[in-house]
């Protein structure tokens, strides 16, 4: 199991008590996200769909690479890896 940092986007920080980074343990992206969901109930509903895949308006990056271009949720993670959850954000002008 590797120690992994997950960067939480602003819109989801209501689930993490405002924390912008959460430390978890896991050997794959999926395990790390599951650990995040266990620590902060409800957050994964915004990241994963009913079938367990990454939602279409969310991307998950390992370092600077989108996991969709690696092995998806099965991508293995090394110690001190950084995962970023990046949802689509509309805000700009009004």
């Amino acid at each position: 199991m590797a120690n992994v940092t997950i960067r939480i986007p602003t819109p989801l920080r209501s689930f993490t008590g405002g924390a912008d980074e959460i430390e978890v343990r896991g050997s794959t992206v999926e395990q790390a996200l599951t650990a995040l969901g266990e620590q902060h109930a409800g957050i994964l509903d915004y990241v994963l769909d009913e079938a367990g895949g990454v939602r279409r308006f969310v991307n998950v990056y390992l370092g600077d690479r989108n996991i969709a271009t690696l092995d998806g949720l099965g991508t293995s993670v090394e110690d001190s890896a950084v995962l970023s959850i990046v949802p689509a954000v509309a805000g700009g002008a009004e």
Partner: protein
Amino acid sequence: MSVKKRRLEELRRTIEEVTPEDAWGLHKQGAALIDVREPDEVAGGIAVGARHIVRGFLELKIEDAVPDTGTPLLIMCASGARSLFAAEDLRNLGYDDVKSIVGGFGRWKDDGLPVEVPRVLNAEQRERYGRHLSIPEIGEEGQIKLLDARVLLVGAGGLGSPSAYYLAAAGVGTLGIVDDDVVDRSNLQRQILHTDDRVGISKVASARQTLQALNPTIEVVGYEDRLDSKNVERIFEGWDVVVDGADNFPTRYLVNDASVKLGLPNVHGSVYRFEGQVTVFWPGRADHPGPCYRCLYPAPPPPELAPSCAEAGVLGVLPGVVGLLQAVEVVKLLVGIGDPLVGRLLQYDALRARFIELRLERDPTCEYCGDGAVFPGYIDYEQFCRVAA
């Protein structure tokens, strides 16, 4: 004999002279043609293919124009006298093969060699854009590109305000602004194009007033419309670059889809509280095409999963940072310099004062820009929440 004549005779013994016709032949074989006359002389015409470097700056600027001192140089002035002095200076500077053109531009023209009337900046433009002209990467050529450019800004709000303001200052000749809103007092915390005494008037009218007060020489084209599937392509046609500063998903998808269809670079920015993102979506780029918005996010979130409106908000300064990063990308694209943010997402975290770069890759199966994709049409997504900013 005057000292001038004596000196010119000395120079003629050491500097090789060529006729305009021979110079034209040498130029076609790769020799650099340098015109050292004054700007007002060049305004009337210049040899086709010639680089204009005014005599006073010749030694300082020649290296930018001709970096290899082994490249043969052909120097031209009006009559063939100043070019002899200039040629000697360039030889002293280290250029091995420097020739002076006999009879200068006068004889070049009389001999029927090709001439063009160059686009040059007028005195007011030289003064206004002087700090651009001193940057070799921009210079007069780059400034003319900016003056000829047409940039369409979607939204005259938090992001559009700083972008449009600086693009007007930079001399982008035509700015289009799409916004159907009116100025509200709550906008003024960040939307710096507008003013307190314009609360209640259209943002397009307010923006035009501010931009033309800063730079009366540019044109502002306003569209007091909300983008939809019917008008988006009509409004987007004929622009060089699109700047997306929208505040809602339906507009962002329309901006993306029309930019993909028309092959336009889409300079995208978004803000939320203390965080901002910038990238350039440009699948139509000739070399190294990048992804489009839909490669990343094929569809907008459903209302129940979008961040709630009540939670939204933005640090007023933040869209300033993000909108100006967008403006910098626009200038780079228009002048054709640097490495654009294509295929890269720059994330700015104001609280940590940290920039993070993520790699964005094209999705070859993207419905809109994927390999062999047939444009599926525009979609009017339901407007459920106008988030923040």
